[in-house]
């Protein structure tokens, strides 16, 4: 068996694994913070929105302050607003929900985006260890692949920029392939929109998973 044949096999193996993960994630919605509809959550949201507006006055640009305030780590779901602002650790879904809420305080269209990212099995084993069994969360790791949530903003030309509030950077600036890269993406839309989003050289139809080549 020569190296070239092995390489071809590896590609189809990865592609197949990505497909299996995407089927698993087909009906998964984006993480959403819940609201007690009482003073605790009303106050929490008011504070968060004030912080977001304050941050945009102090440091215009993406809400990098969110990640500076919260560590990334296991989060129990369902998660309420009043709990989210008091905890010191949030997972990517909660961070993405907050990022979207922060973006929404300024003008413009904001969307939730789901990703599948590729690391390696050692990294995934490590995270499985960090995430204790008793944490109430959906499965997010498969061998070397992980589920991830981020946020996107759209400009007037339907070009989106994807903000990763966990890594505190624009996805466009991250590596396009290799360790830590996105291998699939889905932009979630609740309106009746059918036109695709332009991101890098790809077209992302709303609510459909798209595999990304490196």
């Amino acid at each position, binding site marked *: 068996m020569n190296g070239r044949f092995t390489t071809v096999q590896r590609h189809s193996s990865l592609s197949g694994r990505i497909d299996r993960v995407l089927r698993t994630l087909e009906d998964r919605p984006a993480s959403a913070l819940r609201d007690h509809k009482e003073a605790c959550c009303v106050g929490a949201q008011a504070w968060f929105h004030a912080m977001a*507006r304050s941050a945009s*006055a*102090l440091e215009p640009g993406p809400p990098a302050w969110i990640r500076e305030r919260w560590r990334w780590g296991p989060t129990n779901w369902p998660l309420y607003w009043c709990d989210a602002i008091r905890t010191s650790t949030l997972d990517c879904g909660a961070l993405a929900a907050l990022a979207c809420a922060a973006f929404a305080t300024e003008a413009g269209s904001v969307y939730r985006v789901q990703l599948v990212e590729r690391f390696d099995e050692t990294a995934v084993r490590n995270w499985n260890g960090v995430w204790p069994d008793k944490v109430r969360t959906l499965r997010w790791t498969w061998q070397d692949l992980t589920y991830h949530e981020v946020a996107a903003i759209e400009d007037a030309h339907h070009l989106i920029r994807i903000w990763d509030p966990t890594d505190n950077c624009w996805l466009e600036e991250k590596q396009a392939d290799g360790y830590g890269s996105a291998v699939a993406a889905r932009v979630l839309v609740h309106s009746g929109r059918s036109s695709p989003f332009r991101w890098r050289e790809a077209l992302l139809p709303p609510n459909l998973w798209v595999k990304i080549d490196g």
Partner: protein
Amino acid sequence: MLISGCHSGVNPSPGLGVAQSLREAYPHARLIAKDHSVLSSGVHCDVFDDVWICRQWNELHLNQHRRDLESRLARGAWFISGLDVEAHWLSRFSLSRALVPCRKFLRETVKPGFEAMKGTSVNMAETIDARAPHDEIYHFCQRHGWRVWIKGPVYESKAVCNWGELGRATETLRQSWGSNGLFLQAHIPGREVSVALAAYRGRILDAVFMRKSVVTNEGKTWGGEVSDVPETLLVELAGVFRSLEWTGGCELEFIQDTSDALWLIDWNPRFPAWVFGATLAGRNLPAALIAAAAGIDSFHQSTACRQFIRVVREVPVLTRLPLPPHPPPPQQRFAVSKHPSGMPLLMRKGVSITRAHVRPARPASQQLAEVAAEAARVGSTPHRLFLAGVADRRFSAAAAHAKDLSTESCRVNVAYSVKTNPDPRLLRRIVDFGMYAEVISAAETQRAMGVGLQPARIVYNGPVPFHLELPGLQVAAVFADSLPALAANAAKVPSQWIGVRLRPPRVQSRFGVPLEDPEQFQRLTALVGSLHPKVRLALSMHVQSSHVGISRWNAIASSFIRFGAAIQQTSGRRVECMNFGGGWAPSQDHQLWHEVLPGVVREVSRDLPTVNHVFLEPGRSLVEPTAILLTKVLEVRLIAGRREAIIDASISDCPTAEETPHPVAIVRGARLEVLEKGGDVVLGRTCMEQDVLAVDVAFPRDLAEGAMLAICDVGAYDASMSYSFGRGGT
């Protein structure tokens, strides 16, 4: 091929990277390292076939050195310089095999003006010559929020965030580069990117765009990603370099801001130290240069990898170039730690690369001219002279500005910060000009009332709860510094407005309710919502704009207003009064009253239309120029070319001397002459090392014992915080 600038330490020169690139392309080429110290680490690398160690620049006979270089070039060698100053030196001569730009055009590329780039889409960060008058430099720094860099003419830069730090950093850079060519540059927030290129006789052979991924603590590239230069930029650069008839390597350093605009911050007339990273990406710029110069058709290119990162590795020292014993002698210590290739030494031999010119001296200000006669009559010194006319003008102007900012629905008033200087002569002007007084204690309140100010014109804004300081007194507004104090004031204090001081996010302070704490925010809104309906709510912020800069202060004020709106919405309680304290400096007057405060008032009206009263709390900006300190010269001495004047005043009379610049003038009969910028210093009469009243002033030639000097702008905290020291307890 001869390659200079071979040091590869934490602040590397490009020589080693150039050599590695040439070796990659021309495996059989003979590469010779040229440098001025065995401590230039790259000379020991096995990529070189030979090493030419020259004497340090300060020892070199430059003409002989040029002849030595010419003879090597005459034997067929090509020369790529990795040292900026060397490139400038070589540009004076027409050495055809030295691949450096022509001197005539090289001058168009020097900092800070970068004349060659004018007219392109590239932005230039605002700069000011370090030799400009102190007050202009101070104003520049304030205007940019004290986010500025002091930079050398070739390289080396330090970020500074206050006046004292600027003085120290300037002195450090002077030791390397001398006084000429130092400048300050406004910080541009964004990402560091670079363009590196090779050009031959005006034609760009190849160019790459590099985005830094990893940087050292000194801001040097440790890892990066190489890509094509954006097309529009490349077209512009092609035109620029064609007009410069450029030959050689070049690195343009930019900041790419959040809107992707490019700001040019440096132009290096040589390849960058990371040039081998570009070679690894398949873009061998040094090889392209040699190919063009030597007429070679092609060269070997490695497989492309867009990203690169540096590693540290040990290499054996060449036997014939052993390292000196440790510790190295002083001149070598300087060279090792900063510039093994010795560029500052070459600059001191007169290789000039600067275009900056000295600003003309300024005439004495009008305010000083008015008091010159009065100053001449003063007997004993030191003496703080109050300038009544200046005080009248400043209070009058502030009152007029506040009136201009007022609208039908929102009254804007000045509340003079009494702690700045509680001199009764100033407090009487509060009454005369219909202002309010901002106080922090019962003593200040009584002092203000002592000059006739009514309690209804007093704003209390101190950390001690008002009901403990002045129970029962009905003042205009009382601001609490904590939630318990707010509750107590609301229950016990019969004032027009009851308020609380807030600490906006990102503000380091011990004062105010911290809004970044969601628990505190929720307790605040719950408390505010529960206050008696008759309580008229007020909110206060105070951030020193002289520390954070006026732009940052403005952003914090916006942040505060947005939180005010959130408090109103969440508590269900109308906010009726807002109080803004700024620590503004007199140099910010125009920007403050014509740009910043109008914007603040508009924002209040938009986000909090229920607010019907705004207090502004100037202190320094009102009274700093209202006094000068007259002092006699006790001794003048000359040390290492610098004159030092010992005066009969001290830092105890002017305690903010290190924090803010104070113009110094000499009293000559009925005239006051402001001293120009120079190399002399004014020292106080005490034994403290920090008793330095002024630096970088130029004494008149005839300055002698008995002369009277005036230290200006001492009407604010220099008055209120002066203390008795070294006078035997008097």
